[in-house]
C-alpha cells in the first residue's frame, strides 16, 4: 500500500494518510482532484468495486467529510478517499459516470446532508423522505427530539379519560 500511496503522491495531492489495517488505508485529498484521483484508482490501480460513499459532519470545523470507500478485488485491499468540503457551500463534483450505483448514494447525501452534486441523475427527487420539507436531517445541528416535539406534540383534539369514571358514565348514565 505504501508504494501505491507514493505513486499517487506524485500525481495528486495526498494530504494525510492513515494506515488503519494491512488492507485498509485512508487518504485525504482536495475537492478539485478527488474525482480525478478516484477515476485513476478505478482505471489504473484496480479499485473497481465501490463499497460506499458517505459523509461525516464535522460541524465544529465547519466541514463535511466525504468518504469514497473503494475496494480492489484482486489485491483484496480497501482505500478510503476522504474529501473535506465546506459546510456552508456543500457542493461536490458528481461521480455518477464512474459507477451506476453512485447516483443513489448522491441522492441520499443530498437529501440527508444537503450536499449537492450538480448533474447527478434525479438528484432532487425525494429518496427516503418523501414529502419532507424540513432541513437535511443527518446534519449534526438537526435536533431530532426538538423537531419531533415541535411537529408532533401535543396532538390537538386528543381526549383522555379516566377509565373507571368513563366506564361508570357509559354503563350507568343515570348514576344508579
Amino acid at each position: 500500500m505504501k508504494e501505491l500511496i507514493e505513486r499517487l503522491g506524485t500525481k495528486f495531492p495526498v494530504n494525510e494518510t492513515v494506515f488503519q489495517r494491512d488492507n485498509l488505508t485512508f487518504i485525504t485529498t482536495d475537492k478539485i482532484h478527488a474525482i480525478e484521483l478516484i477515476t485513476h484508482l478505478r482505471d489504473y490501480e484496480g479499485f473497481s468495486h465501490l463499497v460506499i460513499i458517505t459523509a461525516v459532519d464535522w460541524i465544529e470545523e465547519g466541514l463535511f467529510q466525504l468518504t469514497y470507500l473503494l475496494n480492489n478485488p484482486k489485491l483484496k485491499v480497501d482505500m478510503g478517499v476522504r474529501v473535506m468540503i465546506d459546510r456552508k457551500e456543500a457542493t461536490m463534483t458528481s461521480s455518477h459516470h464512474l459507477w451506476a450505483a453512485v447516483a443513489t448514494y448522491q441522492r441520499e447525501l443530498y437529501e440527508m446532508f444537503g450536499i449537492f452534486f450538480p448533474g447527478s441523475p434525479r438528484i432532487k427527487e425525494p429518496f427516503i423522505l418523501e414529502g419532507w420539507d424540513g432541513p437535511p436531517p443527518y446534519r449534526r445541528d438537526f435536533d431530532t427530539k426538538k423537531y419531533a416535539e415541535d411537529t408532533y406534540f401535543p396532538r390537538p383534539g386528543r381526549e383522555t379519560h379516566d377509565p373507571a369514571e368513563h366506564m361508570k358514565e357509559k354503563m350507568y348514565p343515570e348514576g344508579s
Partner: protein
Amino acid sequence: MLKFENDRSKYPEKNADGTNIIDLESGKFLKIWQGPIHPGMTGNMSLELIIQGDEIMECKTHVGYLHRGFEKLMERRRFIQCFPICVRIAVPEPDFNEYCLAATIEELAGIEVPDAAEWMRTLLLEMARLQSYLAWIGGQAGAFGMGIIGQWTIWARDLVLDRFEEISGGRIYHMHMPPGGVRSLLPYGFEGRMKDTLDKVSQIMVDVERVMFNNSVFKKRSVGLGYIDPLWVEEYGITGPNARGAGIPKDVRKDYPYLKYGELDFEVSLGTDSDAFTRADVRRRDILTTIDLIRQIVERVPKNGEFMAEVPNVLHWKIPKGETYIRSECTRGEYGYYTVTDGSGYPRRINVRGPSYTHAIALMERMAINLNISDTAGVMSSLHTYPPEVER
C-alpha cells in the same frame, strides 16, 4: 394466424437524450404501483411501474416506508446503547449487524477478542445465515406460486430459532455479541440438539430440491429470468449470491477471512447462467455449505475458557478518534459498517452498507425493464433484498 406487425424494439419511442416518451393520456401506457403492501414485495417498498400491455417500460423504486433513522439515532447513543438499535436494521439476520458494529468498536478501541468468543461468533453468524436462507426459499417459491415450500422451510427455520433461543434467550434479536466477546458459550447438551436440527433441515432441503428445483413450473418461469450481466457486477456494486450466480466468486468469507473462517473447510458455490434459477440454486448450495460449516464449528467451539475481553465501564467508555470499515458476508452479499469516532463517548458517524442498497435500487430499476409484470415478484425475490438496509 397471429401476426406481430410492429417491431417491439421501437416502443416506447425515445427522446433525443435516450429517455422514453411516455404519455399516460395516450392510453398506450399505464402506471401501476406494486407495493408497499403487496405479497410479491420483499418488505415495505414499492415499484412505480409504467407498463404497456403486460410489459414493464419503466421502473422506479420507492423506499422510505420503514425509515427510522438508525444512523442518526446511534450518533446520540453511547456505544453500548447502539447495540440494541443496530440489530433492528436487518430483521431476518440481525447478527451480521451485531458482529460488524462490535468489530469496528473493538478495532478502534484496541480490544482483542478471546478465541472462544471468535468461535461462538462464527457459529452464530452461520446459524443466522441458515435461518435467513430458509425464510428466503419460502419467498422465492411463493413468488412462483408454490406456497407449500414456505410452510416447510419456516418450520425448519423455527428449529434453528429454538437453538438461538437456547444460546441467547432471544429468537429473532439475539444481541449475543457485545463489543469484547460474546455473552456466553454453548449450553449443556447443545451439540446433540444442534445435530438433530441440522439433520431435519438437511431432510427438508432434500425435499425442497425434489419439489421446487425439479418442478417444471418453477423451471419454466425462472430459467432465463432476471439476467445479470457479469459486467454489471462492478458497475452496480453487486455482491453475494447475485454476483456468484454470474460466475464471479465474491464471498467475503473466502476473500477476507474474518473470525475463524480461515480455519474452516468450505467451497464457494458458483453459477454460470446468472438467471433467477441459477441464483436460487447458488443459495440452495450455500445452505448445504452452511449446514456443513455449522457441523464443523460446533465440534470446535471451546467448551470452557474466557469468552469476554476486559472492556471499560460501558457507560463512560470513550474511544479515541479514528475510523474504520469492517465487512462480513451475509446471505445477500457484503454487509459492512463504517464507523467514525471523535474521542467522545458517542460515535461521530456509523454508516451501514447493506447489499440491498445497490441491488434494490439501481439494479432493480434496470432489470425491471422489458420484464413481464407477473415476473416482478420473482425477480425481486431472486435479488433477495431487504428495504430496511436501504433506509437505515
